[in-house]
């Protein structure tokens, strides 16, 4: 019969049309919020999703996975006495591995001896050139540079972030990437413990 295929196809759209209502009503009857709630957003990006798929950005947002990467930021540790300690040692690996070469680092020099000290005086990231590849964070040996989750970066001019804008506390790092933070801390503690053990082993000899 001519037109059978069209009807068959239309049954798909027809089913999808009713699905939107059925799904909404079933959520309503269960007394749950399908929209503007984390549970609803999770449901709408899962395999069981039927009906309306759209996430109403900016009122609601997709749940960002931990690995998500946008512009990098620099991490500082907050010491118990309230001072800030930068993790960056200005070793320059991030600047060397950066594919579009958007990282600029000025290394500090000791004013008395003229020798380099492990701390940057200036640190720039040209955000308009950054391609969000994540290499800097991946290869940083000190976990000092981390990819941020903030993706709303539209601006009218050229954005070049300096140290003031780049530095964020380790607690922020922990809040956006708890898994990676815990892993890094564990690694760091293990390293320190190994160092201490080595020192303890070497001490009696000396």
């Amino acid at each position: 019969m001519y037109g059978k295929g069209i009807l068959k196809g239309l049954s798909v759209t027809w089913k999808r049309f009713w699905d939107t209502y059925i799904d909404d009503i079933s959520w309503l009857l269960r007394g749950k919020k399908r929209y503007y709630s984390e549970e609803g957003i999770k449901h709408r990006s899962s395999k069981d999703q039927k009906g309306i798929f759209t996430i109403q950005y900016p009122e609601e947002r997709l749940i960002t996975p931990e690995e998500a990467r946008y512009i990098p930021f620099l991490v500082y540790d907050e010491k118990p006495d309230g001072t800030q300690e930068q993790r960056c040692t200005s070793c320059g690996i991030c600047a060397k591995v950066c594919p579009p070469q958007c990282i600029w680092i000025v290394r500090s020099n000791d004013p008395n001896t003229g020798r380099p000290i492990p701390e940057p005086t200036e640190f720039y990231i040209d955000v308009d050139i950054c391609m969000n590849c994540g290499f800097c964070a991946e290869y940083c040996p000190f976990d000092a540079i981390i990819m941020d989750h903030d993706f709303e970066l539209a601006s009218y001019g050229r954005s070049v972030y300096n140290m003031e804008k780049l530095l964020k506390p380790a607690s922020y790092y922990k809040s956006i990437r708890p898994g990676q933070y815990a892993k890094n801390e564990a690694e760091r503690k293990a390293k320190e413990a190994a160092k201490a053990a080595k020192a303890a082993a070497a001490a009696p000899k000396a």
Partner: protein
Amino acid sequence: MATTLPHTETTQPSTLDLGARFPGVVSADTRPSFKGWIVPKENLIEVATVIRDEFGYDLLSNVTGVDYFPENKMEVVYHAYKTTGGPGLEFKVQVPREDPVEVPSLINLWPGVDFQEREAWDLLGIKFTGHPDLRRILMWEGYEGHPLRKDWKEPFHEEDFKPFKSRWPDGQFYYAEEKNPYQDNLKFPQDFDPEQWIPEGDALLYGSLARYTLPQEDGLGTDRIVLNMGPQHPSTHGVFRAALTVEGETIVGLKPVIGYLHRNHEKIGERNTYIQNMPFTDRLDYFNSMANNFGYALAVEKLMNIPVAERADYIRVIMAELTRVQNHLVFIGNLLNDLGAMYTPALYAFEERELVLDIFEAVSGARMMCNYFRFGGVVRDVPDDVMQKIKDLVYERLPAKTEEMDRFLTENEILVSRLKGVHVIDSETAVRYSMTGPVLRATGVPYDIRRADPYSIYDRFEFDVVTRTNGDLYDNYLIRLDEIWQSLRILQQAIKQIPQGPINSQKPQYQVRVPAGEAYGRVESPKGELGFYVISNGKPNPWRYHVRAPSFVNITPLEQICLGKKIADFVALFGVIDVVMGELDR
């Protein structure tokens, strides 16, 4: 640690001895870690005929040039394969680097070299004698110089190779664009009037349109009209321009004009270090960045001669097949868009694509620009919850939705009458024109690199190389559905077999050491054969980095495909080739 061996053996030159067939003429390439045969340019056509007709290498997949600036030499490299499968044959022509650099064109043997030779002329300045239409292809007509030559420098040239010294340890910031003397790289003469300006190159372009004469069927005299479709046209999938000559509604001439998105990807790649190229490959075919990563990683791993961690191999296959599934679904949606069934099928396809991209984001950190592969493995492991999501998709969601798509469209009479019988290309022409991928398989040639020249761990999976026989638009639509089913089959096996273990056979290094040599890594990307030809001279940056992009090569026969067809079918004919501008223009 369980590892698989790198697949270097499979791409060794064939045991067929080209040197014995042409004693004293053809010699083996004896440079260490180089393969293939060196053919004098006087004998090139003769040798190539033997390679094609006697040895049976019917598919000339890749043609590119290399500028050996320090040795004052230019080289043209050809990679020929058999559509029946097996390793390839590589042959090269070396000529002195003095203008004009001339090499005979192979266009009469393999018409598929058309665009690739034009590209080599455009970017490297190698003149192919006997080529009937040797115009620039990616740069504009009237452009001075050949940008891929080693002595070419852009307006603001900071340094030859990355990393630039100005970034560290004394990285005083400046804006690169302020140092560019041409600002936007444009300079107009003083009395320039855009209204009066006639582009010089267009005369050549329109001249080349009139190469064909078609018999007049109804005897009515009509004028020929030149019609420019694009570069801003909703159905050309990006900035693609087709200069068409039409007689009534029949296409009698067509020249694709491309390069609007050209950024000299290969030159950028030659100045990058090896690892820095990985995120740039994402930007080629931005629908399938996982497949692009795969090809580049294979090529460099061949050069470095390192194994891939076993678990990483499985992860790679899973990601590559997931990207194929979403690419083909979106292809079907976009094809329907092109045909006028606006948005509904495309949005149905995009729902599934979003779910696949959720997985990519969870493992790699980005939805489209994944940058997920590293030499020797992948960057990070797939967590268990993401693996569960993949399982849910592969076993439940994607089969159901593919089935739904099938029910939704396949038997639709309007779609069938629009697609069936509009012939795209026959198998022989497709092979001559170096076409690969689903378009070739829809003509009946069972050529799939996953089976013909298996890479990674594809030899462990059971799947069929699906073919269709008619090679019309409808077959091109159906083959995408078939391939989704095969990809799901591979995915189900890979998910079952995936072992635990490390995800990289190497230590993470921000600068890898790559021994001198050459390698051609190719994968079956969803659009066809994606090849990366990399030459290393032992330095941190590749000497030559060439991308054999399936989109670029597959549109070579576009004029042949469209000749004699109605203009209304052009959009669909162009649509089934499935091009992505990021890859086409590079």
